[in-house]
C-alpha cells in the first residue's frame, strides 16, 4: 500500500503543496521541450523532403556551434562569424547532396540511414581535428543574447526564469513561424512539399531534386545552427552535446516523422513529461530516469497511434 501511495498520491500532494516548484519544473520542462522540438524539426524537414532519416542532425548542430565559436575565438566579429557559419552549413549541404545523396538515390531507407551515420563519424572526426575536443564557451554577449534571470513572485513562492530560455523560446517560435510561411507561401516551399509528396511526380513537373535536397539540408543546417547556439549558451559547446540529439528521437516518434506541428507538440510533451517524471517520480526508483523516460512516454503513445500523434495514417496494401 505504501508503494502505491508513493507512486499515485504523494507526488500530487507535493505538487499541490508547493505550486511554485511545480511551475518552475513545468517551465524548465517547456524550455527543454522547445529545444528538443528544434532538433526534431531538423529531422522532420529532411525526412519529409528526401525520406532520409538523418541521424547526423545532432552532430550537425554541434558542428555548426563549434564552427561559430571557433571563428569568434579566432577574432572574427560575431555577426560575421554567424554569416560565415551559415556559409559553411551551405557548403556542407552541397557536399552531402553531391557525395552522399546523389549516388545513393533509390536505395532502401536503411542504407541512407547508415550513410548519415558515416556522415556523423566524418563530421565528428573533422570537427575534432579542426577545433579540438575541449569544451568551448558560446559568446552569448557578442551574439546579443540576454543573460541573467527574471524572478517572479507568484503562488507564494519564487519562480526564476532565465532570460536566455525566454530568448530561446522566442527565437524558436519565430523560426517555426518563418519555416511555416516559407513552406506554405513561397515557390520553393511549394516545390519542397511536392518533393515530399512524391519524388517522381515532382521530377516530372520539372522540379530539380538535387537543388531541393541542397535547400532542405541547408535549411536543416540553419535550424541546427540556431539549436546549437541555444544549447551551447546553456552549457558549453562540445561533442557531448550530440547526446541531446538522441533525446530528440522520442520526440520524433511521438509527433510523427513527417509532421512539423508534431515535432513541436511532441517536444513539449517530452520536455515537460521528462522533467516532471524525474522530479516527482525519479527518486522512487533511484533517479537518473531522464535517460529513458522520454522513450517510455513515446512508446506508450505509440502503442495507441503507431504513426505518431500527427503522422500520416499508415495505409498498407499488398
Amino acid at each position, binding site marked *: 500500500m505504501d508503494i502505491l501511495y508513493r507512486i499515485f498520491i504523494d507526488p500530487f500532494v507535493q505538487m499541490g503543496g508547493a505550486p511554485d516548484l511545480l511551475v518552475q519544473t513545468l517551465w524548465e520542462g517547456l524550455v527543454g521541450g522547445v529545444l528538443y522540438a528544434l532538433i526534431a524539426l531538423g529531422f522532420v524537414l529532411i525526412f519529409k523532403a528526401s525520406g532520409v*532519416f538523418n541521424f547526423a542532425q545532432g552532430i550537425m548542430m554541434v558542428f555548426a556551434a563549434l564552427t561559430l565559436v571557433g571563428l569568434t575565438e579566432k577574432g572574427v566579429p560575431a555577426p560575421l562569424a554567424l554569416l560565415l557559419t551559415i556559409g559553411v552549413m551551405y557548403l556542407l549541404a552541397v557536399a552531402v547532396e553531391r*557525395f*552522399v545523396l546523389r*549516388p*545513393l538515390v533509390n*536505395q*532502401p*531507407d*536503411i*542504407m541512407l*540511414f*547508415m*550513410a548519415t*551515420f*558515416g*556522415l*556523423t*563519424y*566524418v*563530421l*565528428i*572526426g*573533422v570537427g*575534432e*581535428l579542426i577545433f579540438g*575536443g575541449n569544451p568551448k564557451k558560446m559568446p552569448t554577449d557578442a551574439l546579443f543574447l540576454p543573460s541573467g534571470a527574471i524572478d517572479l513572485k507568484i503562488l507564494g513562492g519564487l519562480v526564476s526564469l532565465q532570460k536566455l530560455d525566454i530568448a530561446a523560446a522566442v527565437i524558436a517560435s519565430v523560426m517555426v513561424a518563418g519555416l511555416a510561411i516559407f513552406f506554405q507561401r513561397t515557390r520553393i516551399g511549394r516545390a519542397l512539399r511536392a518533393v515530399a509528396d512524391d519524388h517522381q511526380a515532382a521530377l516530372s513537373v520539372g522540379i530539380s531534386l538535387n537543388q531541393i535536397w541542397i535547400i532542405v539540408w541547408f535549411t536543416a543546417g540553419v535550424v541546427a545552427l540556431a539549436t546549437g547556439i541555444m544549447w551551447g549558451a546553456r552549457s558549453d559547446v562540445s561533442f557531448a552535446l550530440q547526446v541531446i540529439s*538522441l533525446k530528440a*528521437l*522520442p520526440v*520524433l*516518434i511521438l509527433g510523427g*516523422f513527417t509532421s512539423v506541428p508534431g515535432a513541436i507538440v511532441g517536444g513539449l510533451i517530452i520536455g515537460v513529461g521528462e522533467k516532471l517524471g524525474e522530479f516527482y517520480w525519479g527518486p522512487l*526508483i*533511484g*533517479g*537518473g*530516469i531522464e*535517460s*529513458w523516460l522520454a*522513450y*517510455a512516454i*513515446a*512508446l506508450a503513445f*505509440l*502503442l495507441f497511434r*503507431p*504513426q*505518431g500523434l500527427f503522422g500520416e495514417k*499508415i495505409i*498498407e496494401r*499488398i
Partner: protein
Amino acid sequence: MFYREVGQFKTTYAADQAIFPIRQDRIGLAIILFAAFVLIPLLGGEFLIASVMIPFLVLALAAIGLNVLIGYTGLISLGTAAFMGVGAYACYKLSTIFPQVNVLVWIVASGFVSSAVGVVFGLPSLRIKGFYLAIATLAAQFFLQWCFVRIGWLYNHNPSGAIEVPGHTLFGIPVTGPQATPITRYYVVLVIVVVMTWFASNLVHGRIGRSWMAVRDMDIAAQLMGIKLLPAKLLAFAVSSFYAGVAGALMVFMWLGAAEPEAFNINQSFILLFMVIIGGLGSLIGSFLGAALIHVLPIIVRFLPDALGVPVGAATVEHLTFVITGALILFFLVVEPHGLAQLWRIAKQKLRVWPFPY
C-alpha cells in the same frame, strides 16, 4: 572454371538440401576451419589472438544475432549492445551465485536470459514498424543501460560499478580470469562461434528462416499466406537476443575480463549495425566480413602512421580514425549497397565462368 559444380550429381534429397551443396564450398570451409583451429594458434602472436581474433569472433557472433533481426526479419534494432549487456550481467550473476557450475553452462544460460528480455522489448514490434520501431528499441538500450548502472544487485554492489570476471576452469584448465591464456580463451570462443554459426545457418535455411524472410519482404502478405506474425517476430527477437547475449557474455568473460556499463552503450549498438550493413543484410558470411572490416580497420589506421614512419599525435590518430571509418562506410555504401557479401557473390560468379566474361 575454379568454382563449377559440373559433374557433382545429387542423388538423394538430403544431398540436395545440404547447406553446402558444392564441393568447392566444402573444401573452402574446411580450409577456413583448419586455419582458424590450427594455423592461427600456431603462427599467430599473442596480440593477433587476444586483440584481433577474439574480439572479431565475439563481434561476429553479435552481428549474426543482429542480422537475424534486421537482415532476415526486417526489424531494425538499435539496442543490440544492451542485449549483449544483459547476457554479460546474467552470466556474471549466475557464475558468482553458483561458482561450482561449469561456466559454459552459464554462458549459454545467459543467452536464454537475454532472449527472454529481448522478447519483452520485441513486443512493440507487432504494432509499430520501420524507423518507429528502431527508435522504440532505443528504449531498451537506454533502460537496460540505466539498470546496469543503478541496480547494485546486478554487479554485486561492487563499489567501482564494474563487473570483474572470477577465475573459472574447464577440465582443470583456467578459461576465464587472469590465469587463462589467450589461446585457451580463443579456442573456447571459436568453438562456441562455430557451433552457433552452424545452428544459425540451419535455422535461416529452414522453415523458420523462410517465414522470417517472408515477414521481411512484406508482413501483411506473409500473414495472408498463413505465417503467424506474433510467433515469427518474437522468435526473431528471441534468437537475435540469444546470440547477442552469448556474445556479450563471451565479450566480458573471454575478451575484456571486466566491463563497465559503458561497454554496452549506444555506440556499440551502432557499430554492430555498421557491421551488419557493411557486411551485407541477410547473409551470415557478411556478418563475419563486416565484423572483420569494422574491427580491424581502426587497428590498421592506428598502426599505419608508425609503419609509414610519419609522426602523428595520438589524438590526431583518434580523430583520423573517425574520419576514415566514416568515409569508408560512405564509400562502401555508395560502391556496393548490398555489402561485402554481395562482392563475394560477384566474385563467385566470376570464378564460375572464368576465363569467359559470362
